[in-house]
């Protein structure tokens, strides 16, 4: 591993969250570089320590969101690195790519066991932007390098997607449950399958899933949009709302990290532990 871990951000045609994702990584004390979809050699040669697939609309969401990007040559490299245990994070469209490539839940190599389907909300279709609340599955916190520092609290993050509903076949209910990493809940931590607590009808209220080993995480909410406390809406309730008020009062609002930073800081911590 490098003395300062290098986290590669993969830019596909149509990605649009690559720059703020890179900033989040840099602000967590790691190094980061954006690689274009056709820079396979450059990516391999730079030997990154971890990979992030950022949000956006890769390849125009042709066929299904993430489906075309999952077949790009650069994903072969990400796939084999993940198999070797390197941490991989897919955010929003990145999560869709990980699902379409079979890397999560990844029960059998190369098999696609899940899908991210169109949001299912009675009487409403299309894109949905809103802030949601999440809690982290206990097992995930132990084995996933992106979640080690997330704690037991309720995490507010924004979602922004039209296709974010995790779907599994009913017979895989139990297995899917063991792949759960992040689940939607209300501001007090209580799960519900009803809108808006579960904002898209996701199976088991899943907001993020991981592979068995825990090194690959696919999440629909955007941590990079809540990296700083100032990115939180003024109305956010609960612990993070209190912390936001406090950072405002203490004059440290510009530099106080928000709930989204936990994911990137977890990875930095994971690398410190390895070293």
């Amino acid at each position, binding site marked *: 591993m490098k003395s300062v871990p290098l986290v590669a951000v993969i*830019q596909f*045609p*149509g*990605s*649009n*969250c690559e*720059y*703020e994702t890179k*900033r*989040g990584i840099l602000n967590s004390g790691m190094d980061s570089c954006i690689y*274009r979809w*056709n820079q396979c050699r450059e990516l391999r040669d730079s030997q990154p320590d971890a990979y992030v697939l950022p*949000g*956006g*609309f890769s*390849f*125009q969401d042709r066929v299904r969101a993430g489906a075309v990007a999952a077949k790009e040559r650069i994903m072969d490299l990400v796939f084999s690195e993940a198999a070797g245990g390197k941490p991989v994070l897919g955010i929003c469209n990145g999560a869709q790519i990980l699902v379409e490539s079979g890397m999560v839940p990844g029960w059998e190599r190369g098999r696609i066991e899940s899908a991210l389907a169109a949001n299912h909300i009675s*009487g*409403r279709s*299309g*894109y*949905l*932007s*809103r802030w949601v609340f999440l809690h982290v599955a206990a097992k995930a916190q132990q084995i996933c390098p992106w979640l080690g520092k997330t704690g037991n609290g309720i995490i507010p993050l*924004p979602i*922004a997607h039209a296709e974010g509903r995790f779907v599994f076949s009913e017979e895989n209910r139990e297995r899917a449950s063991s792949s759960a990493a992040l689940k939607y809940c209300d*501001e007090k931590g209580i799960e519900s399958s009803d809108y808006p607590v579960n904002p898209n009808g996701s199976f088991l209220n899943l907001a993020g899933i991981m592979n068995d080993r825990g090194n690959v995480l696919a999440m629909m909410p*955007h941590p*990079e*949009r809540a*990296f700083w406390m*100032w*990115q939180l*809406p*003024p*109305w*956010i*309730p*609960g612990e993070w*709302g209190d912390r936001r008020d406090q950072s*405002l009062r203490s*004059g440290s*609002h*510009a530099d106080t990290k928000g709930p989204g930073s936990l994911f990137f800081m977890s990875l930095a911590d994971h690398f410190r532990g390895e070293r």
Partner: protein
Amino acid sequence: MSLSDELKEAIRHRSLAMTLEEAEKLAGYVGRMPTPLELHLFDTMWSEHCSYKSSRSVLKLLPTHASSVVVGPGEDAGIVKFADHDGFSWDLVVAHESHNHPSQVLPVEGAATGIGGIVRDVYCMGARVTGSLDLLRFGDPLGNSGEKSRAICRGVVEGIWKYGNALGVPNLGGDTRFHEGYDDNCLVNVVSLGFVRHDRIVHSFVPAEAHEEQYVLILVGKPTDDTGFGGATFASADLKDESEKGAVQVADPFLKRVLSEANLNVLDFLFDRGIKFGFKDLGAGGIACVTSELAAHGNLGIEVNLDLVPVSIPDLPSEVIACAETQERYGLAVPEWISAEVLEIYNEKYEMPRLFPGAGATVIGTFTGEPFYRVLHRGKEVANTPVEYITEGIVYDRNWEPSPVPVIEPDSRPCHPPLDLKRMLLSVDGASRSPVWSYYDSEVQGITHFRPGEADACVIVPIPGCRAGLAVSGDGNPWIGELDPFLAGAHAVGEAVRNVVATGATPIAATDCLNYGNPEKADVFWQFRQGVEGIAAACMELGLEGEEPLPIVSGNVSFYNQSSKGGAVPPSPIVAVFGRIDDFTKSTDISLKEPGNLIILVGDRKDELGGSLYYRTCIGHRGGRVPAFRGKLEREMARFVLACCEAGISRSVHDISDGGMILAAAEMAIASRPDARRGIVFDTEMLDPVILYSETPGYLIEMSRESWDAIENKPEFLSVAGRVTDEFRIASSRWKMDLLEILEDHTSRLDRIIWREEVTE
């Protein structure tokens, strides 16, 4: 056939908008019967949309100069200084356009291309685009044409999210209003903003270096098709029926996103190499306009070969290839010797031909020392005209005739505050806009501090690491417009300024879009003049930086907004104001914070309820006496609000507009934390409709009693209106209105009417 007859015939059979006199002028310029391409090129150049031929003489009234202005109106976007950070000066780039007619005919595509076009105007100045706003005016969703108005609203919102979200530009709100005057002609105004390093501003003309060395014209983007052929002309005539769909372009945000990344790469490459270049987006008039303008504004000629233009439809006539308004294209003027490397970035590095069939970059023309615009196609010369005529333009002095609206006030004004408040909160104009915003991505790029609805203006922190925040708001009230066109202009500026000021930001620039009916009608042209005069008057008063006016740095005029029956839309000047706050962490939102804090009323209430939400919603009368514009007072109030923010004593601030003080108070309560609900109790009985409902400009500020007591020499326009409570209600000593019982209704009202079609009362 005489030349005149030939021209008449050409105008008829090509559906040109130009007059016979204009066509004869063109024939005089070229000394023969103009070619079809020349006719279409000049038809676009001399269209109202491009030439401002009716409006130009009036627009001179607007203040456009201030020491912060880097580029005023004239280029694709306006530029003002913004902030210095890390050794670089950063400038704000802004543009404002309308896409009204296309959105009425094809709402999804029309609204999408509206964003597509306006962001190109900002991109082509070399900027990264970091925000867009949509100022939307729809017909009455519950009126006679309700079904159509609702469908158009849904379509426009869909077009905005499908395009804007994919492009990765945060949506910074804007406003949505409904008025039966828009039943046959919706308004879709779009504002776009971005930031550019001062030393890397790009201009839309071929540089002077092209006189010394050979420059070529690279066309990049989507392959040319026949979409949008005649688009500018379409925007410059009455909307006859909905058969004109061919004039609407088709947008592609995916291609645009890749193209934007590639463009930034190319511009950086050229700057790093110290190469001078010109860059311009393709909008109205397509290839013909971009090539001729790049050349003409650089005092050069150009020879364009249409055989080299990648097309997606075979055998298109010359004038269609040259003038179609296919989206997602730019023109780039670079030295010939570097062109191969530029093409490589687009075509190899960013693989544009692989990502979109036929897309990519191609050299299609060479700049020439002889000042002629020449176009070749299939071995023939299809245009040849001196470049000076292309940009010369034409001006008309239109007749105008005052047509003021008589002032008629209602006979009685019953006042039942809880009931009135409830009606207003549940009216289509007073209901929460969150159902609209829920479709928009307001947070992509990770720079958003206040999203739509959280504060009076959206606030972004656009330059990573720099504390300077940008606040932006767009406003314009059709109810004032139909009663007093001058005050519509003045208050459009005033309200946008107040919204920006309420967040703690100082206005630094404004843009306008002037939406009116047929300028050839004297009463309409009077409304237009009045609107411009109103904007000018307000801008002269409301510059808060030193003694300079607030400069209008970009804008657009949209005439012919009327139905086939001839009724013009309400006079609709729409203004966007941009403000800067040096430390964004000091900016204020509207949510009530602390029980016991005082609510300070800034600005006495006056008996001027004409056009108010109360009149319309609670007594079914539009009234006549609209709020006066008191520039000096507005300025002093704004200075006071900014001083409070700077001193850190304002805990929440909300401007008073639609629904008056009571609605402002309710909105502040509704914005409070769900686990710490707040309300307001007024100090007096509060049974006077003037105090409660007047839309006289003003603000409510929440501050502690200590802060209030510490203010020395309190200006006369201040008074204590009430205090914050921990009960989720608005109350006085005589009445109370619990907000929890209407919260869900207020929040979902538009969703239920517009999207779920729950329209039975």
